[in-house]
């Protein structure tokens, strides 16, 4: 059998004819701040987004993709996502400048609020997807100087995909005015605590913090010497938190969290199966520069007022799609049996080729294969019966509502 040619994310199935087709793995990889910690926990490290990253941890210590997946759905998994790009955009005009590039409302985003957004090219193609937080600091009043408390310089914290961060930085530098400052916070690590017990565990370590946040809210928190940015969000469909921490402290923080009975480390493998179940697209697979947000079923990221006002890169292309509809649409597919359809598998309606799988695998939670892909809009209705070709077999598949596994975000009241 052959598994050593395989980079995670690229299909492993290869005749000799395909075995060179893993070209998206750079030759050299960098190490993450938690590299030694991962290895000490028996992680199997693979190259991903230019870094050596843990795909899964040692079986003897409760690891393995399915075990880590199930643990995260039931308890809390701790993921190292320090490969992601953490950026800061500051300046009086920061919101207006970002609104030239992002299709979402940024100016009306209140301090401490988070929004999912996209970087688009002129044709409406998706350059990356990202999370943007209004991180504008509150400046306490000073009675002696008789100043009142007020908001400081507008500040936006932006988290982008690891594999895209250098391109994103170049794009932002090219298009943002010189009046705003873009900082790449490359001294920061990022970890994600995800699962129904994440709040319990975090609340024991940092008392009160979970109570102050609901889904898509973010706060600064001084934990002893460690200045943390804690955001209630994630990429698993579960309640959870992403914690930005100076790289020098991340190992201590990871140990502190993993000391809680509910928390175990979880790798890239589980992250991928969790996000697929949650119906969340993965950039470079489900989203690319050839796909626009309407086709990708991400119109929620195009804030209504901004669809009308325009003024953002890619607006006219997206407006056409919004008005006229699009040829294809991102859908979920549920397969019968146990054989998964992977990225690249062709989708058929009868004998007609109607689409393509962009990510797929076996759902540990549901116990059957699931996939995400693009199919012609005529065949994209929920419940439409299609087939997917895997190794010359046509597997029955049905268009399914996303997410496959319901989200369990903590939205407060």
């Amino acid at each position, binding site marked *: *059998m*052959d*598994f050593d040619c*395989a980079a*995670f994310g690229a*299909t*492993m*199935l*290869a*005749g000799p004819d395909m075995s060179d087709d893993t070209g998206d793995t750079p030759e050299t990889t960098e190490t993450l701040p938690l590299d030694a910690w991962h290895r000490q926990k028996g992680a199997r490290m693979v190259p991903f987004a230019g870094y050596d990253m843990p*795909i*899964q941890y040692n*079986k003897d210590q409760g690891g*393995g*993709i*399915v075990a880590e*997946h199930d643990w995260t759905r039931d308890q809390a998994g701790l993921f190292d996502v320090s490969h992601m790009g953490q950026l800061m955009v500051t300046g009086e005009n920061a919101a207006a400048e970002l609104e030239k590039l992002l299709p979402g409302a940024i100016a009306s985003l209140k301090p401490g609020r988070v929004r999912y957004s996209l970087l688009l090219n002129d044709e409406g193609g998706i350059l990356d997807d990202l999370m943007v937080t209004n991180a504008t600091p509150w400046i306490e009043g000073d009675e002696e100087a008789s100043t009142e408390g007020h908001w400081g310089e507008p500040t936006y914290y932006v988290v982008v995909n690891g594999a895209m961060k250098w391109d994103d930085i170049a794009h932002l530098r090219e298009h943002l005015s010189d009046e705003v400052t873009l900082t790449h916070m490359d001294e920061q690590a990022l970890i994600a605590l995800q699962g129904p017990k994440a709040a319990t565990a975090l609340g024991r370590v940092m008392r009160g913090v979970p109570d102050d946040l609901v889904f898509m809210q973010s706060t600064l928190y001084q934990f002893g010497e460690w200045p943390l940015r804690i955001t209630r969000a994630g990429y698993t469909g579960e309640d959870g938190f992403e914690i930005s921490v100076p790289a020098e402290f991340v190992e201590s923080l990871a140990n502190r969290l993993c000391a809680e009975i509910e928390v175990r480390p979880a790798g890239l*493998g589980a992250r991928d*199966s969790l996000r697929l179940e949650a119906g969340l697209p993965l950039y470079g697979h489900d989203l690319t520069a050839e796909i626009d947000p309407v086709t990708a079923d991400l119109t929620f990221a195009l804030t209504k007022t901004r669809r009308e006002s325009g003024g953002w890169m890619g607006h006219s292309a997206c407006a056409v799609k919004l008005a006229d509809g699009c040829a294809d649409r991102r859908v979920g597919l549920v397969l019968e*049996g*146990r*054989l*998964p359809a*992977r990225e690249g598998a062709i989708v058929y309606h009868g004998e007609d080729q109607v689409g393509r799988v962009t990510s797929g*695998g*076996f759902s*540990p939670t549901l116990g059957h*294969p699931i996939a995400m892909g693009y199919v012609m809009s005529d065949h994209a209705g929920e419940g439409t019966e299609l087939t997917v070709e895997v*190794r010359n077999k046509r597997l029955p598949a049905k268009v399914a509502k996303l997410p496959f596994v319901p989200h369990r975000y903590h939205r407060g009241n």
Partner: protein
Amino acid sequence: MARYFTEEHEWIDVDGDTATVGITDYAQEQLGDIVFVELPDTGAQVAKGKDAAVVESVKAASDVYAPITGEVTEANQALDEDPALVNSSPETDGWFFKLTIADKGELDGLMDEAAYKSFCDGL
């Protein structure tokens, strides 16, 4: 009965003219949780070094090659019901298929257990 190993992490038990094929413990460990195994049909001809089966783990699909040439006489039906047998007992109950050996000379060059172990230690 003698057991041989390939550099592609298959094992083969030889008993007279028939043989049983599976993947090694090292292989299942590398693959992780196995969710589906596609086995050859009875009567299929498999050729040494060519695709004979496919293992689907949560992560990906991987080919399994035939260690030697022959005709498949039986596939392990238990793997249809419980593919995780390959994880729990890869070198016993998790066998893949049996075949009649076309040419015993092809066994030359396969590794014995000690040689395979040192091969894995070097990976």
